[in-house]
């Protein structure tokens, strides 16, 4: 079935390193993706989004890359800090028959651990 998911369940990096979190999707009609971060004991927090008419979008210390050919997107975090330790989810609003952006289908998530 259609899905959106992540390649690795955990990622461990040293403070100051760059982190790359990957996400594969299966719905070729998907044209909008969102990344969320969830810290322990908190609800998910929006990080950045990207539409299919873009290959790359940059935010503050984060960059999302979209490769529509292989249906893959990645979240890159520059100079990773301990405060970046969290679970990261990619989400697809159109997967599962969503008709608006309020219905998001989340993958399992990647746990990012940043060591000082």
């Amino acid at each position, binding site marked *: 079935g259609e899905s959106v998911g992540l390649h690795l369940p955990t990622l461990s990096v040293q403070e100051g390193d760059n982190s790359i979190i990957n996400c594969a999707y299966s719905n070729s009609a998907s044209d909008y993706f*969102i990344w969320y971060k969830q810290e322990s004991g908190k*609800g*998910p927090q929006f990080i950045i989004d990207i539409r299919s008419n873009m290959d790359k979008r940059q935010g503050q210390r984060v960059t999302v890359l979209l490769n529509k050919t292989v249906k893959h997107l990645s979240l890159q975090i520059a100079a990773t800090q301990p405060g970046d330790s969290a679970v990261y989810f990619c*989400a697809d609003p159109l997967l599962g028959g969503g008709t608006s952006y*309020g*219905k*998001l289908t989340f993958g399992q998530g990647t746990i990012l651990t940043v060591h000082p």
Partner: protein
Amino acid sequence: DAGVTQSPTHLIKTRGQQVTLRCSPKSGHDTVSWYQQALGQGPQFIFQYYEEEERQRGNFPDRFSGHQFPNYSSELNVNALLLGDSALYLCASSFRAGGGTGELFFGEGSRLTVL
């Protein structure tokens, strides 16, 4: 500016009981979505309320029902609780059913334990 607030933060129920969870959206938002997050999993969409009507629904049984009030706040009701209903229930708010953006604002959730 108050963000999304949920209550209660934690609760324990027994099988067969009923539970009501409450959510107040972020100021200026008129749409509320509910998600269930089991331990170690991503959030799963339950339903969305806009203009006091259920607009979209995920793959959840009728035991899960909701309501939205004129002030945009919302309730999630779960009847005949099962052990498998134990989870973190997240409320997310947005403006105009999230049109144009996938940026939802989540509360910190209500942790339900069913014994």
